């Protein structure tokens, strides 16, 4: 079976830190953003994307960490 390399999606610029972002359905570009999921989704619709992929970009000064029990 031929190995297929996954495609690296575009980077998310720091201007989106802490914001909900909407990708086009092919996940090749960011089409909109908003302070909330609802806002981002509505902005994506206005931009012509009816099935956006939504995610929240990391807060500028917040990091996930692991810890020892």
């Amino acid at each position: 079976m031929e190995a297929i390399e996954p495609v690296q999606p575009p980077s998310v610029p720091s201007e989106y830190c802490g914001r909900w972002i909407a990708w086009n359905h092919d996940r090749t570009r960011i089409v909109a953003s908003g302070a909330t999921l609802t806002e981002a989704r509505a902005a994506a619709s206005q931009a012509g994307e009816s099935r956006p992929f939504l995610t929240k970009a990391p807060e500028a000064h917040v990091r996930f960490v692991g810890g020892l029990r």
Partner: protein
Amino acid sequence: MRFPYQHYEIPASPVDGSTDLYRPEIPLHLIGESDELFLFGLLDTGADGVVIGRGVAETIGATLDENVRWTLRGLNSRSLKRSLVVSTLRSWMAKSLQPGECRLQS
């Protein structure tokens, strides 16, 4: 299972000074009673379970049972009791949109 991590540009991290953040995010297709969403979820091998936010649950028309409450605990050991039951979520499925990406089905 192979999938690309999502790269975020960030202000310099207090942990290591890096301005690059990579997160293992996988595509999810949440289908509720009244709506559906395409989201990216964090693949966290250290988590015992999976949760979605109330806003997401309400958007797709999932029903929350306020009588069922669970305790969630994070790094600082602070416990939160939250209503987690999503009783009418019809399916939770991550679809592989490109060859080489992960595929999960419930």
